[in-house]
């Protein structure tokens, strides 16, 4: 039972991040490219020294800039799994998996036996005597996982380990990860760009944007009602940021939104309106009647690859992701939308949830 606590400021990368992961818990780290996710992992692994910060695994202090502590990577018991499996190309699969145990001074026979056990654990027992170049991407990644687990780390860091795999292969790998990741109270940090990873593997989520944690919460809560911009884009919901006013109103640069207050929203404080793209109706001309929420936007993208047609508007005036509307193929055919068109979007007030902004 360990758990991980991280607080790190890395000046030259513009990163100032803090999070913790409970024992036996998987924390998903989300965020745009270059936001500082990998830097956070590097600090935990001891590859990057923060200018200011502390890393603790259970009661072991791994990094403490104030006390001048910096435990070298090889004594941290922190495992690392990257998008590239990085199997040592000159060693057979079994020798790759045994590498950690051999480095820890175990005998060849003992390490080899353990390696074969771990390979069986990730459904790769039959690959033991192959060379890494004879493996497929999914097989290599399973072996890399076995190699990381065989070193029995207290913390496992995973930086988009499924990003390079086919959908079916990634699914099988997820099953293996669910089974093995947090066994024995190990903590895991998973950097990902995939909603499914979060939904299936993560207990909690932090969203990092521009080097700061902008959102943290239970995975389910963040997916259902993300409050950061990246979280909204990621989870596929619309998000409008502004200032709360009395009576479930959100004032933004481009107008006011009416909704249902879902959290502790205080008048005059920053808040966000969240609504599903499915709740948005699209019109060519100003709609009749007086819908409570209406916005005139420019179409940026019409995506008909999914089961519904996703209409994405140009980015909001404050830089937030463009609003999205999901409409049926029939409506799309009728509207004949193309990028650059001006359209009216409407949303019923009861479909809009107002949350306090982090």
């Amino acid at each position: 039972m360990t758990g991980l606590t991280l607080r790190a400021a890395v000046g030259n990368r513009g990163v100032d991040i803090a999070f913790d992961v409970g024992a036996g818990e998987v924390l998903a780290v989300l965020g745009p490219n270059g936001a500082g996710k990998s830097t956070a992992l590097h600090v935990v692994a001891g590859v990057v020294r923060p200018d200011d910060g502390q890393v603790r695994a259970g009661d072991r202090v791994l990094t403490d800039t104030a006390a001048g502590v910096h435990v070298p990577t090889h004594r941290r018991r922190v495992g690392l799994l990257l998008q590239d499996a990085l199997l040592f190309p000159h060693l057979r699969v079994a020798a790759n998996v045994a590498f950690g145990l051999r480095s820890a001074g175990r005998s060849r026979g003992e390490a080899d036996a353990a390696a074969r056990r771990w390979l069986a654990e990730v459904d790769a027992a039959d690959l033991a005597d192959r060379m890494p170049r004879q493996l497929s991407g999914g097989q290599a990644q399973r072996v890399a996982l076995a190699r990381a687990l065989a070193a029995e780390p207290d913390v496992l860091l995973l930086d988009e380990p499924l990003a390079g795999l086919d959908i079916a292969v990634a699914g099988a790998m997820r099953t293996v990860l669910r089974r093995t990741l947090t066994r024995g109270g190990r903590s895991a940090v998973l950097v990902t760009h995939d909603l499914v990873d979060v939904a299936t593997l993560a207990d909690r989520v932090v969203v990092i944007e521009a080097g700061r944690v902008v959102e943290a919460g239970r995975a389910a809560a963040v997916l259902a009602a993300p409050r950061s911009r990246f979280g909204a884009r990621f989870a596929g919901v619309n998000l409008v940021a502004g200032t709360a006013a009395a009576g479930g109103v959100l004032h933004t640069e481009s107008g006011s939104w009416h909704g249902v207050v879902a959290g502790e929203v205080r008048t005059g404080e920053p808040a966000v309106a969240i609504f599903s793209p499915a709740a948005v109706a699209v019109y060519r001309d100003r709609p009749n009647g007086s819908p409570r929420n209406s916005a005139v936007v420019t179409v940026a993208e019409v995506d008909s690859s999914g089961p519904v047609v996703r209409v994405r508007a140009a980015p909001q005036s404050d830089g937030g992701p463009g609003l999205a509307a999901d409409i049926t193929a029939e409506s799309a055919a009728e509207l004949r939308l193309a990028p650059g068109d001006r359209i009216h979007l409407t949303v019923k007030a009861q479909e809009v949830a107002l949350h306090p902004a982090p």
Partner: protein
Amino acid sequence: MGRRTGSRTASAHAPAAALPRWIYVPAALGALFVALPLVAVAAKVDWPRFTTLITSESSVAALWLSLKTATASTALCMLLGVPMAMVLARSTSGLVRAVRPLILLPLVLPPVVGGIALLYAFGRLGLIGRYLDAAGVQIAFTTTAVVLAQTFVSLPFLVIALEGAARTAGANYEVVAATLGARPSTVWWRVSLPLLAPGLLSGSVLAFARSLGEFGATLTFAGSREGVTRTLPLEIYLQREGDADAAVALSVLLVVVAALVVVGLGSRRLRAQGWT
């Protein structure tokens, strides 16, 4: 040289776009320019006397000395060059970056100048040489001087080939090895060095070939003493004055030895790269 294919997907047989036809003309001219002089030398050889010419006492001594010293200097290059290349490839220190051009300077320096520099460092009155001399150690104009001269000019070739290989391989393997609990020395012996092996092979072939052909620095720093410092290139230059036929025969011999080394080890390098 020293290049490793980065990933499984990078194919060595990727389809190439068709080259414009005219480009084959200058390419063929270039190939001809390189090949023609070699053909000319081969044509000039007095074949009936070839064996006699290359088995003369002085020739055999020169060839033997060349092989010995080139092997020794290649070993020295590997011993020093591998750590140098890794430090250059991995270190982010400003000092290392500042020193890098200095280390690679012999690459563009005329070897004669290198020889003079060595003389003023290790010669009897040199910077270090005077202390060595006082201690009874003489380097200049000995076989050791030949090895030092060859190492001086060859080392940058090996370092630059290896540094490229190390950069291409990247530090990720080493980071992963460290997260598995391997101490830096363990990572070095079990991961870094094996990954560098293909680059090391091509780098040392290059260094050996360069050492074999070394002339200017050797002559300046080691002189031309038969059996002690007169390597094959020096012997060829000397024979050219007296017995041109012998010079030609020895030239061909040198070409053959160099070609054997490059082709022989070069093809092994290709097989060694198979694991990437």
